[in-house]
């Protein structure tokens, strides 16, 4: 039987990135239990607290923090700015998503095309180069043959919001049940590195 599980505290921006973290942790060869779920409600909170997470993490109770780089192009530059090399340790996994979490979802072109009911050719081949991956996803949803999906993901006409009324409720099940993380990792370097960090964690 497996040894004592490793108790992870996870930090995320919203329920969509929370679902992504759950999928990532399932790749670990270790028995993992999530004990603390910290919803940062955006990246501002995570930026302000990231050094606390590094100092709180201990061997059997590590942290996994997932944050969008937003406007920042270079994850490494952002990391240096938020956590200077001397303040880092291996008990806190801090993974930066290039731009937005949607770029990791879009990287599974086959899964997205089936889920949205659109041609795979319409999806960007290099999601990490998109300036606004969320908008790309919504533009794709607009052309969906599935009315239900389009209504859920696309802002209703006459509203001034960025996403549709059931955006996270619709994409969370996609992440949980459809999203092919390994195939997505082939198109997204930041996802590939995150997967690698999870798999090799603790070894």
């Amino acid at each position, binding site marked *: 039987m497996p040894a004592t599980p490793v108790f992870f505290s996870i930090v995320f921006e919203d329920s969509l990135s929370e679902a992504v973290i759950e999928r990532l942790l*399932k790749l670990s060869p270790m*028995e993992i239990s999530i004990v603390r779920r910290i919803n940062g409600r955006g990246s501002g909170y995570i930026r302000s607290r990231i050094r606390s997470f590094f100092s709180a993490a201990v061997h059997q109770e590590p942290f996994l923090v997932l944050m969008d780089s937003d406007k920042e192009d270079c994850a490494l530059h952002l990391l240096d700015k938020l956590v200077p090399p001397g303040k880092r340790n291996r008990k806190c996994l801090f993974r930066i998503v290039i731009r937005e979490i949607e770029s990791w979802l879009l990287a599974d072109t086959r899964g997205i095309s089936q889920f949205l009911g659109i041609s795979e050719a319409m999806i960007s081949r290099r999601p990490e180069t998109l300036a606004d991956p969320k908008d790309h996803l919504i533009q794709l949803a607009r052309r969906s043959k599935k009315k239900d999906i389009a209504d859920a993901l696309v802002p209703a006409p006459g509203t001034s919001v960025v996403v549709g009324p059931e955006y996270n409720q619709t994409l969370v099940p996609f992440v949980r049940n459809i999203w092919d993380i390994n195939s997505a990792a082939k198109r997204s370097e930041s996802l590939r590195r995150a997967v690698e960090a999870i798999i090799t964690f603790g070894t």
Partner: protein
Amino acid sequence: MRIQRIKLKNWRNFPKVDVTLLNRIFVIGPNASGKSNFLDVFRFLRDIARGQGGGLQQAIKDRGGLSKVRCFAARTNPLVEIEVYLGGDDNGGQNYVYRLGLTQETRGSRRPIVKYEGVLRNGKEVLVRPDEKDDADTERLTETHLEQTSANKEFREVAAFFNSVCYLHIVPQMVRAPEMSIAPLQGDDPFGRTFLERLAKTPHKTTKGRLKRIENALKIIAPQLKELAFEPDSKGQPHLIAKYEHWRPDAGRQDETQFSDGTLRAIGLLWTLQEGTALLLIEEPELSLNGEIVKQLPGIISKVTRKNKRQMLVSTHSYELLSDKGIAPEETIILKPAKEGTTAHLASDDIVTREMIQSGMSIAEAVLPLAAPENAIQLSMRFDATGN
């Protein structure tokens, strides 16, 4: 006097509990983790100690029988056990341990009975049951000595302490229209039903001072509030009156029937905090209470516990309330449900929590995520990684 430590075995959904309690305690946990059940042990002791209209048999009956009180996970050891450590600097340094073990008759009407009952005063045994009298007359075991004035002379202070425990869970509709309530009142006023009567019985000067303090707290949410007063109407019925700044004289007057739910709850809560020195149990004060008042609560509670030497246990879910950085992990009990029942721990037991608090995070940030509903989901490599 206050409760310094509580130990439980097979109490409701708790197989085993052993926690130390400071003057101010916040009990947090996901829905259905047993926050109310945890607070209920103190109400249970009060119901036993009440004597007239109370007592062990009634206290168990009110809870639906011993099988409802006993932990569902209990198998081999059916005893329900409660052990309370009492002390404090305000009663001449006396400290007590009260312990009670309960089981039920094996035949007949299967009444709940005392398996053992004991009291230590300053480390010395002043009550050990069962004694010879119990052996000679087993009927005696259907009652505790806590509930009997004739038998608790050596620890009457303890009985009085339990008897005065106060429970607060105000429902605004019941303050407004007490005639609508149906359940019989059981000696105390858990739902604030007779709140106005209580106000009327309080000496005028005391009432004025308390209302003044409440008024100051309410100004946070209602800056136009000028004065809060307690005045009889033309028929002599007492009413709470709020006077507001208004350009027309006499236009800015409201009585309690016009108050919002949040205002009524706030008034009821802030009044009760100031009333007496007994242990106060407060159930989810954030429900229908204005968020700004909720944020102030930990500070207000601290002030009262300090000045009145009053101990308070607050069950809460509230992120706003627990955002107060003055709340220590040593003051926070976290309940974690599992298959075998719920466990209770001080938040300070966890090294990661302590480290997070020390780096400037609040209980809301560091501990509330431990009580997230999706918690304790075991992930394993057996999950299909692609999910297909």
